């Protein structure tokens, strides 16, 4: 009893300051998470009370062709878009890190797209640029090439969104630049004396030393790409079309939950999304022991 009292005497100020956070995490995270896990085992339309159906939603999911398609679309978006985005970020960061004048200016220029990129305004712009009589086709026309409507062609629509993601490489580039600055210059000096060329220097000095930054960017990029919503919603007008080719996982979840009011089904989708993100993140963490090098 005395020890509890003592602990409380020492702790109460800490908990006083934590009160908003604790209330918040209970009300907006813990309890909703529990509720959505429960809903995922029920049929629930928000107007009548939830009806327990066990694994029914999960079984239905794996038989739902539209769901499977949304998984494919999202995985393509994530695993094609994120690596390409990082490739661009690292390439430009490496060039900027060569001690050229105007670094801050260039960095700012390249950062702007990732500041704007998530907005509705840019998604609208994208819809015009890649549309039938959009900017891209006007440029192609100038060279005498007849372009297609990239947005309404099922085989190209998703790639316009992947290009939009790559276009926003600025934030990861800024992080890469900060990482590159920490690579000791004398390593390059000695490598030069040993006759190592640019590519050799890059693969045996730069790349190994910035693997922690690559790791960070990869994890963050993948987590956020899995949750992308705005571009697909705006560019496809909320449908995920044409022919569901841009039906992102989160967009399908939104349709199921908030236009069809299948709350149970949407909750099951949310939990699978959580599991998928955790699984991929865990995989990268485990593999990182093999390819991420921390300087002591």
């Amino acid at each position, binding site marked *: 009893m005395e020890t509890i009292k003592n602990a409380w005497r020492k702790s109460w100020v800490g908990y006083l300051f934590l009160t908003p*956070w604790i209330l918040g995490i209970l009300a907006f*995270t813990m309890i909703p998470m529990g509720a959505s896990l429960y809903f995922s085992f029920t049929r629930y339309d928000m107007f009548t009370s939830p009806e327990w159906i066990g694994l029914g939603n999960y079984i239905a999911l794996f038989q739902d062709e539209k769901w499977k398609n949304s998984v494919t679309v999202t995985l393509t978006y994530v695993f094609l878009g994120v690596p390409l985005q990082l490739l661009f970020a690292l390439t430009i960061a490496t060039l900027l890190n060569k001690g050229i004048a105007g670094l801050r200016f260039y960095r700012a220029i390249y950062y702007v797209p990732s500041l704007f990129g998530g907005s509705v305004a840019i998604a609208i712009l994208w819809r015009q640029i890649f549309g039938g009589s959009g900017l891209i086709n006007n440029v192609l026309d100038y060279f005498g090439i007849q372009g297609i409507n990239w947005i309404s062609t099922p085989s190209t629509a998703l790639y316009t969104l992947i290009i939009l993601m790559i276009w926003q490489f600025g934030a990861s580039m800024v992080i890469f630049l900060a990482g590159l600055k920490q690579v000791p210059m004398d390593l390059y000096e000695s490598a030069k004396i040993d006759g190592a060329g640019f590519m050799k220097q890059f693969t045996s000095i730069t790349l190994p030393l910035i693997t922690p930054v690559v790791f960070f960017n990869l994890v963050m990029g993948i987590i956020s790409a899995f949750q992308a919503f*705005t571009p697909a919603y705006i560019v496809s007008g909320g449908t995920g079309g044409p022919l569901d080719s841009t039906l992102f996982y989160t967009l399908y979840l939104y349709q199921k939950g908030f236009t069809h009011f299948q709350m149970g089904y949407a909750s099951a989708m949310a939990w699978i999304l959580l599991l998928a993100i955790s699984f991929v993140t865990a995989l990268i963490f485990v593999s990182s022991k093999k390819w991420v090098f921390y300087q002591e």
Partner: protein
Amino acid sequence: METSKEIYTQLNSPIQKQIRRRRATKKFFIHFFIILFGIIMLYPLLWMVSSSFKVPTEIFTSVSFFPTEATLDNYTTGWAGVSGVTFGRFFLNTFFIVSVAIIGNIISCSMAAYAFARLRFSFKPFLFAIMLITLMLPFHVTIIPQYIIFNQLDWVNTFYPLTLPKFFAVEGFFIFLMVQFMRGIPRELEQAAEIDGCGPIRTYWYLMLPLSLPAIVTTTIFTFIWTWNDFFSQLLYLSNINLYTVALGLRMFLDAAGQSAWGPMFAMSTLSLIPLFLVFVFFQKFLIEGITAGGVKG
């Protein structure tokens, strides 16, 4: 004198000259490539801005940057909005939500950060770990019950679902950011305050908060950007046009006017990006620091 002359002749030896020239060419090509690629990257944006001053037919036919005759018609048509509600209303609504979110985040996240960075209490490592895990959590696992709760409270079509949670430190990133910052503040200052009779509450208010100003500025900026760019939760909770934000206004514009109104749409899109651009221009340092804070140390 002799040596400096020697160095001078060495510096001007043909080989040295060649090396220097080669270096200069290399630098030139790097600059050339970076500028060229930068122009390609920014061209869509610049084109949108210039198109917002073009007459509608020109948007579809012209790749050119400069409008043949500049007009403000797109801005006046766009600003008028849809069914009598102007973009002025949408901007006011967005600024209101953003301001409240900023106040909420600063108060609640700095309180939690002070506790984590400086105070002793039981289960601290455990609670800190929970905070870090919530950073990675996709919000989809909580959004449905949250919606149901707000719906039952009759708060759908109010600003509460978008603002109230911010007063409960729901954005762990800012707690993390401020914890990192507060850990760097010298402890001697607090010890001095303690000797002068300051308790933890006054220490927080008079010492830690003012000293954490850079972290507070970063929090303000990122809250601004994220709330401004937010679409999902606004789409979810606001369906009354009088409560629409800029993002929702643009979306509705797109639905209502369709492909026919690219001019006004570009005009309003451009306007919607101006606040972000201003933040970028005036607070670039904090932006870059905020982005790198997690990346390099982590």
